[in-house]
């Protein structure tokens, strides 16, 4: 006797219990603390903050723990949490020119005022597994010598700008419309550059990386140099309506990348260098550089370049597919039940096959006659 499948509730509860058990793993191994994740898996935390669009290292670390290290799942937790937060207002633009830099390099000049500062980078490490790390309780690494004061680091691209060699970035007039907010209004195309940059900075690192890489390999090639890459902290200020002036509300770490790109000129523009821009929460260098390349590729219309039909030039393609929470949701939803639709297809295919069979038999009979 057939009994209709019941028990969805019970199955869900049991699955969640099992998941919780798996998350903890072998209980004879010490539990990972949120603080450990925040401090020792900081780059994962940074990615979760950047793509989750919420700057909170503790919450990001908690999300990573809860998500068992699945970063997209952790980003999703942060995004869902972010939805519930009230929006008090918008901060003043942060001044990345005055950033207290831990790292600042330029690939276009051998030396620049403020100097080349490598900072904590993997760049020149040899990628050899360090088996010494397997042992725990190692001696603490020497802390870096505390810089007395962060030197002033003027923007590298401004040196070029002084000669008019690079396209000028005109800041919007103070009375101009505020830039749109991707998280508060539906995306409508064509999107202004601020909206594109918002989408890229929270876009999936892998997607943005691959889009950027495709431009390097020739799909809308735009010959980028890293004019400057800087990582450091900036204060965040917000104007409090009751006070009538801006006060500092916190400090965040940012990675900023400005690329310098060749530009041969167009009918209306003389040859000069152009720019791509990347700005991402935390130390997230790969993402910031990728973002700058894709930003530059998306600017083809504004600069009077040709549409080469490359994916990275296609604003609709890039913006609609960069968000990993949208992508993973829609991709994974196909594992939900679809048996009503499938039944419908099944009946249709059966019917068409019956008709085709009948037609074939009819034709055979005719041929035999």
């Amino acid at each position, binding site marked *: 006797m057939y009994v209709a499948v019941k028990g969805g509730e019970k199955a869900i509860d049991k699955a969640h219990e099992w998941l919780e058990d798996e998350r903890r793993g072998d209980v004879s191994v010490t539990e990972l603390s949120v603080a450990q994740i925040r401090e020792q898996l900081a780059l994962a935390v940074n990615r979760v903050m950047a793509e989750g669009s919420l700057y909170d290292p503790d919450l990001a670390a908690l999300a990573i723990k809860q998500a068992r290290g699945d970063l997209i799942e952790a980003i999703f937790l942060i995004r869902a949490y972010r939805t519930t937060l009230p929006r008090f207002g918008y901060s003043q633009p942060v001044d990345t020119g005055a950033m207290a830099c831990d790292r600042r390099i330029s690939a276009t000049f051998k030396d620049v005022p403020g100097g080349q500062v490598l900072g904590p980078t993997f760049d020149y490490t040899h990628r050899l597994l360090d088996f010494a790390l397997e042992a725990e309780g190692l001696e603490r690494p020497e802390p870096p010598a505390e810089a007395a004061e962060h030197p002033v680091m003027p923007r590298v691209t401004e040196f070029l700008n002084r000669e008019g060699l690079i396209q000028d970035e005109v800041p919007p007039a103070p009375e101009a419309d505020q830039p749109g907010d991707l998280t508060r209004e539906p995306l409508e195309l064509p999107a202004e550059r601020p909206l594109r940059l918002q989408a890229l900075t929270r876009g999936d690192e892998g997607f943005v990386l691959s889009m950027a890489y495709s431009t390097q390999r020739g799909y809308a090639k735009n010959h980028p140099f890293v004019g400057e890459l800087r990582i450091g902290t900036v204060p965040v200020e917000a104007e409090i309506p009751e006070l009538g002036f801006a006060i500092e509300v916190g400090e965040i770490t940012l990675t900023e990348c400005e690329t310098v790109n060749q530009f041969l000129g167009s009918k209306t523009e003389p040859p000069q260098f152009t720019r791509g821009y990347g700005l991402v929460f935390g130390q997230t260098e790969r993402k910031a550089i990728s973002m700058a390349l894709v930003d530059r590729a998306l600017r083809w219309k504004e600069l009077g370049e040709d549409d080469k039909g490359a994916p990275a030039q296609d604003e609709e393609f890039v913006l609609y597919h960069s968000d990993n929470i*949208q992508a993973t949701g829609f991709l994974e939803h196909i594992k939900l039940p679809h048996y009503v639709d499938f039944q419908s297809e099944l009946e249709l295919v059966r019917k068409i096959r019956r008709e085709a069979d009948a037609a074939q038999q009819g034709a055979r009979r005719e041929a035999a006659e």
Partner: protein
Amino acid sequence: MSVEQIAGEYNFAYLDEQTKRMIRRALLKALAIPGYQVPFASREMPMPYGWGTGGVQISAAIMVPEDRFKVIDQGADDTTNAVSIRRFFEKVAQVETTEKTAEATVIQTRHRIPERDLTEGQVLVYQVPIPEPLRFLEPSEVETRKMHALEEYGLMHVKLYEDIARHGEIATAYAYPVKVEGRYVMDPSPIPKFDNPKLEMAGIQLFGAGREQRIYALPPYCEVVSLDFEDYPFTRMRAEHCCDLCGAEDSYLDEVITDDAGGRMFVCSDTDFCGERRAAGHLGPLGVAESAA
């Protein structure tokens, strides 16, 4: 986390009032222009895109504490995702829930319209994956919005015609496109085309696509015509069986594989409909009376 804790931490029905207002505005616009896709600033919900975030946001925006809420997925109240969404609203809105179509004030659905006719005052909320009926013919949103604005639906008719030329009939079994009030071509969400005639109903129908940030609607008694040709009129389609449990001859059926030797049975996809029939004494070939089950 206990239910009380969660309910205390979030606003009634999860979304904040500003967001609800934004969604209600989109809903009013959608009802005023039946079949037109209204962009809305969809929020990230605590369930993934593709799990019904559009429907959940609409339900949250229209829900009041007095509502009786029903959730179905594939016609059934006990499918895992229906259970999950029902529990979500039990937690964050503490509304009464029901499995009875007749008793519900708001019904959220995925892929089905209940067999029982809805009455005036009932609201049916659909979860929509791809709101754009022209999407599989034209991938660009910029282009398809233009096509709707210009009422340029030739491409769709060519597609339906090509189906007939190739297969002898229109080879769309679900998400079968409709024209609303003689103006907008609309995707009724992936309901089987068997359900299409029921789109003209007394209830209010609201469609939410969270990931695609679109809301559209059908006000009560709105004219909804399934696209077809004079010589190839639209036909409904269901498995040619009766329900093995309740004996219904006119309901949409799920095919259930019962063994690995080709054994199968057919049962109503609408579990409330099937249960009610059995309770009323109807019995299919393999059914047992409800009291004995």
